[in-house]
């Protein structure tokens, strides 16, 4: 009897996927908060190798390859990042160390092996290009949920559609942006930035999501400059979560001598 009951429930779940999910959320801030955690805080720490192809308006490509190590200080709050470049060979060994602070300026360091130079960097804003890509620094490190006013526009079968208006318009180049947040994974699947005239000039979209160590993870994404200045594709590989990196990986010492053990690729699955 109970077996029959179970299969009936299963069948119902399959036929009516809407019912399988928790009741749709209606609080925009709550949705944004979950999306922030899903997109940037999976696991307590993690690593990923990124291959980035920057394509300009003429179709010319530049490639960048780097490894990102991440460790959360506190979920939804501060995080440490170490970004180590491996390609192209003339920037190999270039390292960024970022201590992300929510609600305050990040601490950023830079090591350039060709100049044998460690330098602290600061920026007026986070909307600068990430090493020449169409991604911004903020796309990679995450935009603080408190920086915008969020409004839930509507909810579709697949996604929450939200509109976000910056609290400090002078710090950003957009007037507003719209996100499509997956109802199941809470990953923002599409983000569109609009300028003062309401025209969408920039789109970030997820192309592929793979489950890694139980975390739905973006493994391919793209940003398109709709003003006609090309696009950048990012591919994430060799991802691992909860690898228990110690905090001292994210210190200035790692700039000149990157932590080889943690940069090594994890053993291949099967």
């Amino acid at each position: 009897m109970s077996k029959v009951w179970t299969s009936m429930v299963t069948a119902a779940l399959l036929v009516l996927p809407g019912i399988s999910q928790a009741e749709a959320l209606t609080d925009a801030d709550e949705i944004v908060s979950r999306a922030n955690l899903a997109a940037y805080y999976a696991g307590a720490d993690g690593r990923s190798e990124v291959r980035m192809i920057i394509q300009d308006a003429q179709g010319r490509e530049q490639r960048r390859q780097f490894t990102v190590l991440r460790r959360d200080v506190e979920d939804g709050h501060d995080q440490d990042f170490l970004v180590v470049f491996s390609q192209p060979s003339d920037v190999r060994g270039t390292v960024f160390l970022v201590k992300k602070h929510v609600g305050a300026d990040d601490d950023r360091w830079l090591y350039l092996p060709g100049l044998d130079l460690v330098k602290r960097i600061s920026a007026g804003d986070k909307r600068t290009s990430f090493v020449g890509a169409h991604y911004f620094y903020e796309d990679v490190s995450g935009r603080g949920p408190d920086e915008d006013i969020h409004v839930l526009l509507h909810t579709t079968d697949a996604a929450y559609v939200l509109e976000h208006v910056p609290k400090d318009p002078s710090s950003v180049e957009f007037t507003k942006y719209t996100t499509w947040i997956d109802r199941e994974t809470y990953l923002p699947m599409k983000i569109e930035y609009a300028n003062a005239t309401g025209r969408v000039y920039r789109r970030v979209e997820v192309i592929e999501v793979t489950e890694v160590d139980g975390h739905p993870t973006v493994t391919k994404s793209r940003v398109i400059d709709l003003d006609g200045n090309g696009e950048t594709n990012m591919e994430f590989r060799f991802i691992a979560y909860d690898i228990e990196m110690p905090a001292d990986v994210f210190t200035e010492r790692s700039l000149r001598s990157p932590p080889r053990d943690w940069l090594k690729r994890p053993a291949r699955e099967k």
Partner: protein
Amino acid sequence: MKQAITSLAIHRPRTVYVIAAVLALFFAAQLPRIHIDTDPENMLPATQVDRVFNDRVEQVFALHDAIVVGIVNETDPDGIYNKQSLTALHTLSREILAIEGVIAPDLMSLAVSDNITQGESGEIRFAWMMNEAPATDAAAESIRSHVSRLPLLMDTLVSADGKAAAIYVPIASKDLSYPISLEIQALTDGLAGNDSYHITGLPVAEDTFGVQMFEQMAVSAPLAGLMIFLLMWYFFRNARLVLAPMIVAMTTVVITMGLLVGLGFTVHIMSSMIPIFLMPIAVVDSVHIMSEFADHYDPEKDVSETIQRVVGHLYKPMLFTSLTTSVGFASLLLTPIPPVQVFGAFVAFGVLLAFLVTMFFIPAYIVRMKPEKLENLSRLKAGSDADTLLARALRAAGRFAFGHGKLITALALGVLAVGVAGVLQIQINDNPIRWFKDTHRIRVADKVLNQHFAGTYDAFFVLEYEDDLPLADFRKRADTLLNDAGRLGADVTSLRATIEQDAADMLAYFDAIIAVTDDLLFESEQGNEALEALMSLAEEAQSSGKYFQNPEALQLVETVQQALMDTGGVGKTNALPDIVKVVNRELFGGKAEDYTIPATSPAVAQTLLQFQSSHRPQDLWHMVTPDFRSTAIWLQLKSGDNQDMSQVITAMDDYLKANPLPDGVTANWAGKTYINVVWQNEMVAGMLKSLLGAFVMVFFMMALLFRSPSFGLLAMVPLTLTIIAVYGLIGWIGKDYDMPIAVLSSLTLGLSVDFAIHFIQRMRTLVAEMGSFAVAATHIFEEPARAIARNAIVIALGFTPLFFAALVPYITVGAFMASIMAISGLATLLLLPALMWLTAGWLFKSTTRQTSASTSLTESTGDSL
């Protein structure tokens, strides 16, 4: 032939009217499809080598035509660095960014510039220079100190004297220049404050010229038409009659322009002048007919008979003049400049058309005129015409000319000598900005902005590296390594395919190889030495292929920049080393001694990676291609004069001869200012060729038409004298030989031969009719001379409205018309008779029955004096 035409015209005037009207309407209907082209680049064929290179440079470096907007503050002691001026600059920049057709990401202004500075605790700081307008004058002043440290902004976005700021507005297409400049003008009009605003740049000048040229056409051409009408009315005292040549001119212009537009040709600056050129030519033949008709008109006689006789007289010289004028313009087909070819071909067509229209229409028109309307012609003739000031003056001129052959010839030789001396002094120079008058706001803007800034004219000196040897070498060595890698157990099929791919884009080629090798390496559990070696090989090949990332190559660019400055004609250069040095300096703490190029190629790459981490990473690719094999040095020039650009080009040629570039590196010019020089050179050479070609052609035609080489030679005299005198005058007064003046040479040739043909042909007829040179010599200075003089006066004065045109080329055309008419009229009426008198015995041997014409002539002129 002529009888057939005239009799058709006389007997079926209505048919002539209908056909003319239908044709005119049909071609007028084509006119709305007009497509205007004001792009001087089209002066060169699309396949011309410099143009092809320029197009490629514009594409690979993503360079756009730009409007230059200047904000000048002459009153504030801090110049532009005050709160109010910078706020205006900020507001204006933001508003311009929103204009449709502006390439927003590439706009250059302090308001969208990045700044790179030293932070408070020794960090390097990247931020907008002026994301928001400064709130205080002190904040404005601190921008001054920032700008002074950024050589790419200094003297480009803010003038060295701090009194002016500039916005470079890149636009999607050249023909948007004028409308966008108007929008910007409207925006600046709305800004308060004591700043003055200026808008310039070659695209604006060229597009504005295009627009105003058409406005000018709409004013000048009808005004010239009206003036010609009034003058003819003065001479013939019959409005109804002189309306006929106006109709002929209109019909000719409408059909010719309609045909041009209908055939899908664009109306370029050149072809817009077709109406202005055709109008006098179309009127000339009619004036000859009317002049002779008025002189022969007798109310007692049948009008048809008179007109038939008149046309009979004039058919031959009119045909000759039309053919020679047509050849003069058709010779423009010899120039390698498409718009000039189109212009020449259609004017040549229009001239022949005008002849046909005249031959059909004028007789038909006169025949249909009511006798009472023609009556005042006879009054004119009976009463005053034979005794007007003009008539008397001409008779006196005739007596003088036939009496003082040696003196006149000597004078003409003197004029010729002075003319040749002037021609030798001609300065070949052009600058589209100078097509406007001094007072035009574009000229003013050009002057003011180039006083303050390093220059608003662009040119690019492009260095390219090409060397295929390393690729062949790489492929050879890669092949060995692939085989080894295969033996070590790797599946190298896809890698081999990648290596065999086309390597046109070296950067992408090696990127792909590196990516595939990287994947393969990961697959091989225990490592693969051969693959690792291949990886290093590919990386090395890629890195060394990035030629302009090498410090030595950057030093070469610096040296070339210095050489460009040393030419004396360049205001400023902007290039890749400037970026590298600024970032390097700031990375090392901002000290002046670190304003250097780093020591290694990876160090340069890492420096540039920092530059790319800005708000405007794409700025890098205006200076170097992503494969680092081509680099563009942007030159700012204070003058767009072709002479000044040419001087820089010559100086650089000399420099490169003395200091050859390394193997594999080539240098080439691009940019609007350079392209203007290229087409000007082609034009000057082309015009000389076409003028000489036309000259020879016209001589042979004359010899053939007169069936006498000596008369042919004689007919060449007035036009030779006219051309040399007109161009000599240009040399003496120091007016630059520019595009409009070059083109006018064919008009000079075409128009100045006309009078000579009429004069010679009538003289020969008269000598044959009268049987005496002496008698003919007095008759020629009656009606035939009057027709020539009337024509000269009508055309010369008819174009005086052009003197008041806003655009310089129109004034030039007006001045040319007047000079051509004056000089060729005088040469025909004085020099031709003088030469005829000197050579009459020999020249008219076959046509006169008298044995010693010159002796009897001396007697007869002696009598009348």
